[in-house]
């Protein structure tokens, strides 16, 4: 998803851009009152920004398309699940990058309008590295334009998907010029895990990074969310491990039971209502119960998390990590 806070239409209010697994990005437009509900981010003809595969909301099915391919180019199958706005050509308005979850390319839609009235181009043009399309190893989970080296040019921070547990974080330094970006081989900020992980020590699949000076020491630290996929071989547990397992499993099961009870309470409250009224009442109750539902889900997930090294089945754990930049120490 990889949210980006940016004043996309230069109206003085931050908007919120986000990609989606449905294959096209959204924008929640900001105003003095706050954010509006998200809407499709669209090109100059009013079409959703799509690569080659997307979810058709009307037909309710995955759909393939080559409509938006760059003329003369035959890109591999692409699914745009991430978005980032940046002034690519340094003309004072924001252009849009789309990350390709399927083939690892990053595509550009230039803004041919203005900062106040964006009008994005109609075709997906792959960004290039020394003249050939840049391909991110392990496919693109997301990308962000960052200023890594204070050379006045934005650089690209990319998190990869990593189809085999080899997700990583790359930094493509911009070695071009203002208005004409170009990229060399990437710096590897978080390398692919070289071997299967034995604990939730880092994400290894679907990595979503950001850079920020978290410890205030003047350099950029790495924040990265994603999934840690584990599949540990079975072994005998020690007595202490068995006890820990029992305690945490009880906590997890209690949270799950509480969650099920809340859901049952909602269903009981709507079961005798006419269909339309039931739908609306269910939605209201889900909203009212949301904090408790969330708390149960998180408590259950926390217990699961603590059992990760003692779990001998294929399982994924999702959380956010920070790795401090220690270069200057």
């Amino acid at each position, binding site marked *: *998803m990889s*949210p*980006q*806070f940016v004043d996309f239409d230069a109206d003085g209010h931050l908007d*919120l851009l*986000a990609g*989606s*697994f*449905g*294959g096209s990005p*959204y924008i929640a437009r900001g*105003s003095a*009152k*706050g*954010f509006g*509900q*998200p809407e499709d981010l669209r090109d100059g003809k009013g079409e959703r920004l799509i690569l080659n595969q997307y979810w058709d*909301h009307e037909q309710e099915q995955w759909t393939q398309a080559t409509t938006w391919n760059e003329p003369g180019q035959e890109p591999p199958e692409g699914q745009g699940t991430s978005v980032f706005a940046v002034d690519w050509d340094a003309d004072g308005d924001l252009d849009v990058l789309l990350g390709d979850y399927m083939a690892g390319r990053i595509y550009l839609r230039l803004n041919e309008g203005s900062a106040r009235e964006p009008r994005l181009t109609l075709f997906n043009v792959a960004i290039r590295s020394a003249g050939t399309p840049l391909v991110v190893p392990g496919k693109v989970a*997301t990308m962000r334009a960052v200023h890594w080296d204070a050379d006045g040019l934005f650089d690209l921070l990319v998190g990869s998907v990593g189809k085999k547990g080899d997700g990583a974080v790359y930094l493509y330094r911009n*070695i071009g010029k203002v208005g004409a970006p170009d990229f*060399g*081989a*990437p*710096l*590897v*900020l*978080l*390398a692919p895990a070289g071997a299967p992980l034995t604990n*939730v*020590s*880092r994400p290894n699949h679907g990595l*979503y990074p*950001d850079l*920020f000076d*978290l*410890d205030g020491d003047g350099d950029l630290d*790495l*924040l*990265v*969310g*994603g*999934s840690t996929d584990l599949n540990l071989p079975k072994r005998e547990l020690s007595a202490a491990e068995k006890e820990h397992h029992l305690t945490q499993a009880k906590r997890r099961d209690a949270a799950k039971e509480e969650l099920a009870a809340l859901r049952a309470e909602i269903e009981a409250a709507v079961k005798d209502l006419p269909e339309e009224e039931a739908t609306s009442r269910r939605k209201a109750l889900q*909203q009212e119960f*949301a904090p408790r539902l*969330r708390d149960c*889900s*998180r*408590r259950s*997930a*926390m217990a699961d*998390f603590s059992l990760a090294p003692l779990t001998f089945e294929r399982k994924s754990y*999702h*959380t*956010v*990590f*920070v*790795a401090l*930049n*220690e*270069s200057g120490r």
Partner: protein
Amino acid sequence: MLLGTLGVALVGSFAQQPTLSFGTPECVQAGTMLAGIGRLYPSPVMHDADGDGLADLVVGDLFGTVTVSKRLAGDGPPRFGPEEPLLASDGNKLVFNNW
């Protein structure tokens, strides 16, 4: 490469740059829970959501939900409050539809 100190690989024309390294990744705490726990593919970004001058931890996920964990005031390493949904101006949760 060890999981501990993550040396930054320098490739091609950047080989003359000084060696960079990141410390061992550590889970980020948000209130009493871990940030992103119970969600799918959490994607963090730092942003001052409440205008107090401190960047907060904003996390999106595969479901299309966005939360804010406010950075708590104080010295030392940053500490964040619990994940709370980011609300739209209509008072409802901001939800980015997925598929």
